[in-house]
């Protein structure tokens, strides 16, 4: 998870000032293309007063190439709507969706179908499998719609079946599979067309906690191989922390904060974000790089670890090595050292901020 470099990477998908308003006349609030809007919150409030529903209010973010971008929010926060706006399953009321710099909202229906066929894949919360098709036909379904012949379809489907580990299940029907297996089918299907952009709408929310954990690991493994540009929706903050390169927190249709998980934890934008971050197990979020201190003496004979190492994973080592451990950067350069004292004080301080909030540990 190299978060530093993705910030500088090329933007794959860009969401600019997107609004989605449901109601009788949503367009009348954006007569000049939304240019007159000064205060988002104020404008959203005035729309709501008129009896319309604001699902998304002025949402903007960029998804970089090869990045996992997580959108996190509680139910009703507009996260599912925004991911549907990105693929135009839901038509935004106003704003721009740029895919490789090209405005998706200007595309004709035929162009859109073509983009969906070749550039996009989507995984759904309740899987969205075709009940009348078996596993391999479900996975090959997008290829069938493209008019590919059976041999081509099946060979391509067989490849992704291997990728998600569903070998031997090809002729089963969705209802014969467990939830986890069904979602593997969903994942395989979305990958069958080798999309650039991968949308996952709460893909693991319908699964049991143990299976969910397993599928998250699976997802991380896949992403480490595939390097897709990903928009991942979840309502589970811990899930977001595990898999996000960067994440956005949404509330009432608007984005509250965007940043790396650790940025959100260390600098929550407001009390809403802090509510999520407050019960985060710091040792599972903070990494060695976050607690480095300048070495006071020689580094001779000390152990070395990568800056990406989670604090939780180095505590055992530090317990036996009072002098600490050398923290390395990507290229093997020395960033500093991490010590047991540093870990304890970071944990005690709640990630280095707000030492007063003792009750979060109560």
């Amino acid at each position, binding site marked *: 998870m190299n978060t530093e470099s993705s910030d500088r990477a090329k933007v794959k998908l860009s969401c600019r000032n997107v609004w989605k308003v449901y109601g009788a006349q949503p367009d009348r609030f954006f007569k000049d293309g939304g240019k007159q809007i000064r205060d988002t919150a104020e404008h959203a409030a005035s729309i709501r007063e008129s009896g319309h529903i604001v699902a998304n209010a002025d949402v903007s973010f960029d998804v970089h190439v090869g990045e996992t971008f997580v959108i996190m929010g509680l139910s009703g926060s507009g996260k599912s709507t925004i991911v549907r706006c990105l693929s135009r399953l839901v038509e935004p009321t106003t704003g721009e969706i740029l895919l490789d710099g090209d405005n998706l909202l200007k595309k004709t229906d035929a162009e859109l179908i073509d983009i*969906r066929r*070749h550039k996009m894949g989507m995984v759904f919360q309740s899987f*969205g499998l075709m009940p009348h098709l078996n596993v391999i036909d479900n996975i090959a*379904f*997008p290829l069938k*719609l493209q008019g590919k012949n059976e041999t081509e379809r099946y060979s391509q489907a067989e490849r992704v079946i291997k990728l998600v580990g569903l070998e031997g299940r090809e002729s089963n029907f969705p209802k014969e599979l467990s939830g986890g297996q069904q979602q593997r089918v*969903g994942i395989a*299907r*979305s990958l069958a067309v080798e999309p650039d952009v991968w949308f996952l709408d709460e893909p693991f929310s319908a699964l049991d906690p143990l299976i969910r954990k397993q599928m998250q690991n699976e997802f991380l493994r896949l992403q480490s191989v595939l390097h897709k540009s990903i928009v991942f929706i979840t309502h589970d903050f811990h899930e977001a922390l595990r898999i996000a390169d960067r994440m956005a927190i949404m509330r009432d249709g608007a984005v509250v904060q965007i940043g790396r998980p650790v940025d959100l934890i260390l600098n929550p934008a407001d009390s809403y974000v802090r509510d999520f971050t407050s019960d985060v197990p710091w040792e599972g979020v903070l990494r060695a790089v976050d607690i480095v201190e300048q070495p006071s003496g020689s580094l001779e004979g000390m152990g070395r670890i990568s800056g990406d190492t989670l604090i939780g994973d180095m505590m055992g080592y530090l317990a036996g090595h009072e002098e600490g451990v050398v923290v390395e950067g990507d290229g093997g350069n020395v960033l500093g050292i991490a010590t047991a004292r540093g870990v304890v004080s970071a944990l005690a301080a709640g990630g280095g901020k707000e030492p007063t909030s003792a009750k979060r540990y109560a």
Partner: protein
Amino acid sequence: MLAKFDRGLAHWLGVIVATLACIALQNELSWMSEYPDSLIVPFADLLNVVMDWVVKNFGWFFLGISWLLEWPIKGVRWVLNSLPWVVSVFLVCLVAHAASGWRLSVFALFSTLYMVVIGYWEESMNSLSLLAISVPLAVLVGFSFGVLGFYSRRAEKVIMPTLDVLQTVPAFAYLLPILMLFGFGTVVGLIASVLYSFPPMVRNTIVGLRRVPDEVIESGLMAGATPSQLFWQVRVPSSTRQLLLGVNQATMASLSMVIIASIIGGTADIGWEVLSTIRKAQFGESLLAGLVIALMAMIIDRVSSGFAARSGDYDPAEKSFTQRNRYWIGAILGTVVFLVLAQIFSILSEWPRELEFSPAQAMNDGLTYLIVNFRTEIETVKTLAFFFVMLPTKIGLQMAVSPFTWGFALTPAYTAIYVIGMIALAAICTIRWNSRIGIWILLFSIFYYVGLTNMPWPAVLLIYSVGGWKIGGPALGIGTALGFGFLAVTGIWPEAMLSIYLCGIAIIIAFLIGSSIGIWAAHNDTVSAIMRPINDTLQTMPLFVILIPFVMIYKIGEFTALLAIIAYAFVPAVRYAEHGLRNLPEHVIEAAKMMGSTKWQMLWQVKVPLALPVMMLGLNQTIMFAIAMLVIAALVGTNGLEQIVYIGLSDGNFGVGIIAGIGMAIIAIIADRMTQAWSRKRQTELGLETS
């Protein structure tokens, strides 16, 4: 809260006062007791004029269609009749096996053999050939309208009420305009059965397409489906089960209409056989022929619902060609083999007359014996029901009670006791439970004293309209008033009341019996297991057939009709009561158990109140079933609207028949809306999900 409650009570007290005033005044103001003839709008004559005009100017068009449709029917009929019976039997069994396995196949074998041996093979095939054309047509028409309704809300708003009317207008009323437009012949049965059977297909299509989960549609869209790909490769296959359910319902409706349509005669099918034998009082024969229809209905139902249930089970793709196509191969091979065999042994192609076996005569003798020996018992049941239930409801205690019927005359003293007793009962109930029950008792006692047919029509209209308003809001109230207004204005009020009277008694009895059995079945698996096949059989049984046993014992008359209606209409009450009681939220039952409620407390204070909304849907279905049966019961001599429809049909009086038919549809639709609205209201109050 209190003010609102009081206002409701005041409204009802107002209604009661108004009703009593109407009753008191009806001797002075004759227009109250009887809707004046001079104010009757001659809709019937108008309709006749319009119809005559259409027939005169466009008759050639309809006759042309009729001529065109005649050919496929003749073709199928020719094929089915010229095939040796053994081939048809084989194919039926094979289809049964494909649909649901060996058991159905064996059942189909015995059923078809019965048709052969009893000597009704040709008649059965004639009915089947009509069905073979009407079902595909109905499915096609229904699917098309369903798709239209699915895509266009505006179309749906037109389609849905039209379906309501089509499904509630009595079957005989359908035949009338078709008969006039298309002329006599088998085509009338075909068109009537298409018209009667496509509505369920429309409903199921709309429901099926609408129930496809959003995410399935979205995943189709994300896979890059074009609109037509999305429809044919995502929506339609995802809703196969519901669509096949529609096919099943359409088929059953089609069959029942094909049978009913044989009333116009000249069809030489199995329905005609039943009718003509009933008319000749050959009850043994009619029962045997009726059994053929029942067996046909059961096979067709099981086969089509079998396919519906099976959709989704697929053969694994790796099976060989022979395995995948085993039914087709079997069908071809079997047909060839049996064709050859039929050439060699003529008994396999045509069952010889002398080998036909009919226990009809023995059955007739047995019946005669039964009736002669148990005459007193049979008569007593009828007399009791007639004197104490039917007559008072119809003409009121004031006229029904006489020394001849009840053994004493209704003196003013008795009347006073009745009045005081009822008022006291209402008062007690109001104090003990609530004022609504008190009001109901008062209204009911007025009805029972005066008699439904003697009630002044403005009072009846008022009571029903206020009832509709209280249950379903102003729209339903106004709708009810307009509907009953139609009955009055068109001059069919007296007959409408006779229909309501007969149906009403039957519904109350059917609902009480049905719910009791349903409650029992919900607590006893054995009862449930026994009732299920009985219910299934009664529901698939064509209506004619249900009449037969009652006609055999009680001959024609209102009492026979009553029994037949009860026998048909109690089934949904059983089903819904059992379903409602068996699917209550578990935590409520557990909570009640933990509070230490006894079995009976549990039933009456927890389960029944909670299941009541579902049971009311059962009542709704009971009403619909009862009205459907009432129409057919016109054959055994009733006096209500259904009889006018029937007479209209036999006299070819289009206007009169249609008006009466619409009248029945109005009654049915009002009853439907009221019970549904009540059930919905109750369900929301209880926070239960509408099932």
